[in-house]
């Protein structure tokens, strides 16, 4: 422990060197911008700037690129809250209650809570990274296909808490999402499925084009069909900050989201995407007022935003401790290190302590910078809402198109986004909630692959899911959750969902 503190102090000495501070700031700034611009995700931002870092030394390069990564996670909430446009898959949940808060005139509060939640989560993530990285990373490696399968079963069960519409509607949306997730090359046999001879569909339908289309474009398309009040709610400076009540409602969700996100983030693979979905569902499940979710619940912003930030920090654990990338972004960061002749891996700490500790320390500094950068910007961002729709919306559509194209340089993705925009409009008109669709799309390919991989590992024996402690534990949680729901059903208790169904049918809420 003492040596850790000593090394960390050494790291701070490196991180506080003026040029390193400058590159951390630059990374955070670019990251915030990348996050704020709809559609342009951290992956494209980092990929574009990767060649720029070849002229820097390894420490500067990784400090700057990582800054872009976690900076974009801060910024990602901004468009979600203000305009209901998710910059990437993990901000989908923030769209729902964040935007609902904005419509109630609490945009500033939502942005502040998101920023503070992100800071808490980011800083906790770095502390955890400093203290427990190597042992945790080794445990995370145990997370194989059977554990993934069990985690995603849990995710599917949580789907039921995802939406503010009735269960039938939620399941319908989820099914469409799961079916869309079937598109693409079958990894197990090499068959193309539902690809209509388009090679671009080989990797399946991307999450970003679907999320941006369903939420962002759908929202924009539906705006002209209802009366837009010319006067935008312009809050006074005092009203930008969350009220005492709103703070009180966000403490615990931030704490829970942070912990949940970090645990999911260190799992190798693409699990980090579902951290914000799971956090939202968890907050709703334990909330005393689940019916508020979808109508501007503070916890619905605080939880998922924290989860998604600590997941992005958690994703560094396997990369730094073991040299294995947990997703496409750590993979690019590792590529950047390798260009500088540094192989990320178990020896990174001993062979290149300057890079390792300088990088870790810079994340403490970077998180503070982001908070300092984002809180004053809240006022500025909120004024964006004062721009008349006639000017604002065409601009947003332009950014959506550019951003979605930029992810894969694929025009097919732009078409997917446009089609999803029309679908999103239709869904809004018929009051379907698109969030379960996105989660279905996220879960389907990973779930299918891990289920089939597990069965290959066990030679077709389903007991593999119960033989392994982690997956057995997760499945028991699933069974308990289902049991509790069944009990409510058997005892004919009226829960919040019945109230919703009643409200949908036009009856007064009992």
């Amino acid at each position: 422990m003492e040596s850790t503190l000593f090394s960390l102090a050494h790291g701070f000495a490196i991180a506080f060197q003026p040029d390193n501070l400058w590159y951390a700031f630059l990374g955070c700034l670019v990251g915030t911008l990348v996050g704020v611009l709809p559609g342009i995700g951290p992956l494209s931002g980092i990929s574009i700037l990767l060649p720029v870092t070849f002229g820097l030394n390894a420490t500067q390069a990784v400090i700057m690129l990582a800054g872009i990564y976690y900076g974009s996670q801060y910024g990602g909430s901004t468009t979600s809250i203000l305009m209901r446009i998710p910059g990437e898959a993990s901000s989908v949940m923030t769209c729902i209650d964040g935007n609902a808060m904005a419509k109630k005139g609490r945009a500033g509060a939502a942005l502040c809570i998101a920023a503070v939640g992100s800071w808490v989560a980011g800083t906790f993530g770095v502390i955890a990274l400093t203290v427990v990285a190597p042992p945790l990373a080794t445990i995370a490696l145990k997370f194989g296909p059977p554990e993934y399968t069990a985690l995603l079963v849990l995710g599917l069960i949580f789907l039921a808490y995802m939406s503010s519409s009735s269960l039938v509607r939620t399941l319908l949306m989820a099914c469409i999402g799961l079916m869309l997730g079937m598109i693409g090359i079958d990894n197990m046999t090499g068959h193309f499925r539902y690809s209509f001879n388009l090679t671009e569909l080989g990797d399946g339908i991307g999450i970003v084009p679907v999320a941006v289309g369903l939420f962002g474009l759908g929202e924009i398309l539906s705006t002209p069909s209802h009366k837009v009040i010319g006067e935008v709610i312009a809050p006074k400076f005092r009203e930008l900050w969350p009220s005492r009540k709103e703070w009180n409602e966000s403490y615990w969700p931030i704490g829970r989201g942070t912990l949940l996100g970090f645990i999911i983030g260190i799992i190798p693979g693409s699990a980090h995407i579902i951290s914000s979905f799971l956090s939202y569902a968890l907050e709703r499940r334990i909330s005393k007022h689940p019916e508020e979710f979808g109508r501007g619940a503070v916890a619905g912003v605080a939880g998922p935003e924290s989860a998604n930030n600590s997941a992005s920090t958690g994703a560094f654990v396997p990369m730094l401790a073991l040299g294995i990338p947990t997703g496409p972004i750590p993979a690019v960061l590792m590529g950047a290190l390798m260009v500088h002749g540094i192989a990320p891996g178990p020896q990174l700490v001993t062979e290149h302590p300057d890079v390792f500790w300088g990088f870790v320390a810079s994340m403490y500094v970077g998180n503070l910078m982001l908070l300092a950068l984002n809180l004053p910007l809240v006022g500025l961002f909120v004024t964006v809402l004062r721009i008349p729709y006639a000017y604002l919306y065409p601009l947003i559509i332009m950014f959506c198109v550019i951003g979605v194209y930029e992810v894969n340089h694929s025009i097919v993705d732009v078409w997917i986004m446009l089609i999803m925009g029309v679908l999103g409009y239709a869904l809004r008109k018929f009051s379907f909630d698109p969030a379960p669709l996105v989660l279905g799309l996220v879960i389907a390919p990973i779930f299918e692959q891990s289920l089939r991989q597990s069965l290959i590992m066990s030679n077709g024996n389903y007991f593999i899911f119960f033989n392994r402690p982690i997956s057995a534990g997760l499945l028991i949680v699933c069974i308990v959750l289902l049991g509790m729901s069944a009990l409510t059903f058997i005892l004919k208790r009226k829960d919040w969902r019945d109230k919703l169904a009643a409200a949908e049918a036009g009856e007064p809420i009992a």
Partner: protein
Amino acid sequence: MDRRTFVIGTAACVAAAPAIAQTPFPSHAVTILVAFPPGGANDILTRPIAAALEPILKQPVVVETKAGAGGQIGAQVAATAKPDGYTLLSHNNGISGYAEVDKLFGRQPKTTRADFIPLARLIADPVLLLVNDQQPYKTLKDFIDDAKKRPEAIVYRSGGLYGATHLPMAILEKATGIPKLRHLPTNGGGPAITALLGNNAQASTQAISASLPHIKSGKLRALAAFGATRSKVLPDVPTLKELGFDAEYYLWVGLFAPKGTPADIIATLSVALDKAALSEQFKSVVNSLGQEYSYQNAKDFAAFWAADAKRSDEAVQLIGKQG
């Protein structure tokens, strides 16, 4: 502008067109399409070569990512690009196998090898047979004996079906005569190594660059190499050829031009590439990947590619259709 000046102007342009065509290549920026995501070997190796090409060609050389569908999208875009030398492709082993896999499934191949002219091989990274530290095998013989004793019991993980980390195992199975091992496909080399480290698979075939840090830390053990000679970074790992098995496989990165590119442009590009490959910039990146310098010029690469493609086709047929 009235109509007459327009007509005259247009006529002048048309007349000038052949003259423009004769201006020496290249007269504007050259684009290299990279068929794999940033951070991978293709991206890491193509960028320094592009940077080294710029002063030689005296034109900007742009690197553009066109990733997806296991490299097929980039190959397809390059194959249909105008064959004028301004669009090149950075690809790897995958380009050898698409047509054969399509044949297996009765699909019309979207690209075949005939669609591309080989320009240069940037690297050839020999594949290793790896097991994790929880396995008892110390030598290839231990591995073969156990595989024969317990057919279908050893699970190996690849980065994708018919991919560059799947084919070598099929080649190994044939060369050593062991019964088929149980195959667990993943999406990408990274996840495959993760699975091996976490003992969710017992064996895998991976390139040296991807596995070297884990071999150094003792978490993975290399039983044999698929190279023609022993690697300088792993001098203790015997090659399969030494052990008496006829098996060879590399993960390589090469540059291609689309079919129909004029011969003089190909010649200009080849000369420029040979020069760029000698640059310190490129060499240091090769070095940092833990690799030996294994650049090949257009002629040698063409011969290498033909042999590699033959190996790849045979391996695809050995694997056959899975369900």
